[in-house]
């Protein structure tokens, strides 16, 4: 059977380096770090006291206060980024067949702070439960996709994918499949996360995943640098309108890029550590290339998972080298987490947007904070250190891997 083509027609972003897509992209291209001391709670007793927070956001500009207080921040972020994407896609909600518009969202955790706050309150009492009636709906991860569907009346497929830091890429791939099979005309995809909380920072500190470079937050996220010491927690959301190509053409939509492939695999190895030879990453990238029906040499740029952890970074590169051979030294590679921090379940969302904007502007955003070469990392890779690089970009790949061994890869191409 022939698959339908799937294109990107709208973008929205709420990130630690910009509360809209234009600001986000400008700061990505300029190499700006979003890290700073944690303001959301008193972190003075935590091993890590900094993060990449969303800044200067007035939620009530987008969501009435009465509605907002019934939602966790990760749902606020989802609604805000999606409002931008819906505007950007220039959708006419009156004429659109909204029964054929889905929402598939990614979140690694869901309403972590809502859970935390409620249980802290409970612990203060005598054991009598006085749980707020909105507690569950604030907390559950699928409230984000549910709220988006209610706001716009999108009555197609609706759910949330949970695969830790691969969540959004799984959401994108699911939507890709529904649209190319003709099951949906359009789908809002993306992801949001709001885990800069006591439990989030404390929990990732406890499993030693976070950087503890408290004296220099802005340089802490340093993928591929010899002295990298863990990831920097980020938060925010990215929202993308995926649309069937002919549907987009018929309504005269602006088309950013085409989504041409998705690949998935599991490490089946360890709950946090990646496979030592990067086997899962290799299989997922290979699967994505096969799905797209393209040769490895077609890839011009990979936006890596590259979280700035000692073990993860080189293993991903090992897998890239194994799959792409000599071509892995000819393409550009960068980790934009050096600027945004790691948005966990939303990482794939903001990184897909980085890839799509990279194609639009023909610019590869950099891996900032490279100071010292790591002898373990082959110096022939072009890791786009410290400053953006202009180059012709046709086909780009975005990698995401999650605790649990989940790997999900997407490939975007300039529309031909």
């Amino acid at each position, binding site marked *: 059977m022939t698959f339908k083509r799937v294109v990107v027609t709208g973008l929205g972003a709420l990130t630690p380096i910009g509360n809209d897509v234009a600001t986000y992209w400008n700061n990505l291209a300029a190499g700006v770090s979003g890290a700073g001391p944690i303001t959301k709670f008193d972190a003075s007793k935590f091993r890590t006291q900094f993060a990449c927070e969303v800044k200067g956001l007035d939620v009530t500009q987008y969501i*009435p*206060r*009465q509605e907002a207080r019934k939602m966790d921040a990760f749902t606020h972020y989802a609604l805000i980024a999606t409002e931008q994407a819906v505007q950007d896609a220039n959708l006419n909600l009156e004429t659109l067949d909204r029964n054929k518009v889905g929402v598939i969202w990614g979140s690694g955790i869901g309403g972590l702070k809502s859970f935390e706050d409620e249980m802290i309150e409970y612990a203060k009492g005598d054991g009598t439960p*006085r749980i*707020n*009636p*909105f507690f569950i*709906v604030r907390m559950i991860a699928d409230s984000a996709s549910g709220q988006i569907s209610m706001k716009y009346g999108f009555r197609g497929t609706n759910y949330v994918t949970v695969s830790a830091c691969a969540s959004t890429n799984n959401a994108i791939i699911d939507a890709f499949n529904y649209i190319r099979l003709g099951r949906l005309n359009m789908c809002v995809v993306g992801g949001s996360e709001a885990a800069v909380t006591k439990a989030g920072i404390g929990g990732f500190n406890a499993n030693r995943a976070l950087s503890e470079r408290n004296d220099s937050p802005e340089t802490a996220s340093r993928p591929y640098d010899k002295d990298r010491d863990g990831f920097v927690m980020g938060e925010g959301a990215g929202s993308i309108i995926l649309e069937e190509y002919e549907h987009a053409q018929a309504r005269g939509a602006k088309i950013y890029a085409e989504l041409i492939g998705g690949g998935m695999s599991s490490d089946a190895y360890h709950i946090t550590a990646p496979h030592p030879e990067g086997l899962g990453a290799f299989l997922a990238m290979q699967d994505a290339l096969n799905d797209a029906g393209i040769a490895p040499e077609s890839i011009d740029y990979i936006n890596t998972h590259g979280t700035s952890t000692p073990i993860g970074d080189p293993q991903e590169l090992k897998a890239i080298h194994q799959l792409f051979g000599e071509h892995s030294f000819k393409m550009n590679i960068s980790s934009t987490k050096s600027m945004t921090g790691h948005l966990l379940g939303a990482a794939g969302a903001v990184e897909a947007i980085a890839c799509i904007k990279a194609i639009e502007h023909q610019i590869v955003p950099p891996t900032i904070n490279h100071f010292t070469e790591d002898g373990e990392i082959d110096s022939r890779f072009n890791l786009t250190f410290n400053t953006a690089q202009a180059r012709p970009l046709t086909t780009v790949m975005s990698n995401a891997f999650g605790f649990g061994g989940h790997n999900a890869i997407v490939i975007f191409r300039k529309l031909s």
Partner: protein
Amino acid sequence: MSDIAEKVKKIIVEKLGVEESEVTPEASFTNDLGADSLDTVELIMEFEKEFNLPIPDDEAEKISTVGLAIEYLEKHIGK
């Protein structure tokens, strides 16, 4: 207006996002003030917390208007 009535009004304005002028004794939480069933449960819980008074479920179900809430609380507080 009693202290209790003032506090009740304040909670309703805060939780339901309505204007103070709308919070009349006859106003029904669901029909006039836009509350859904979960909002109503939350309101009752806020009253319980504010006045440190447990309200049994069968009593809570009958508290459907601003006036009935004030009346119930005035009757049971301090006894």
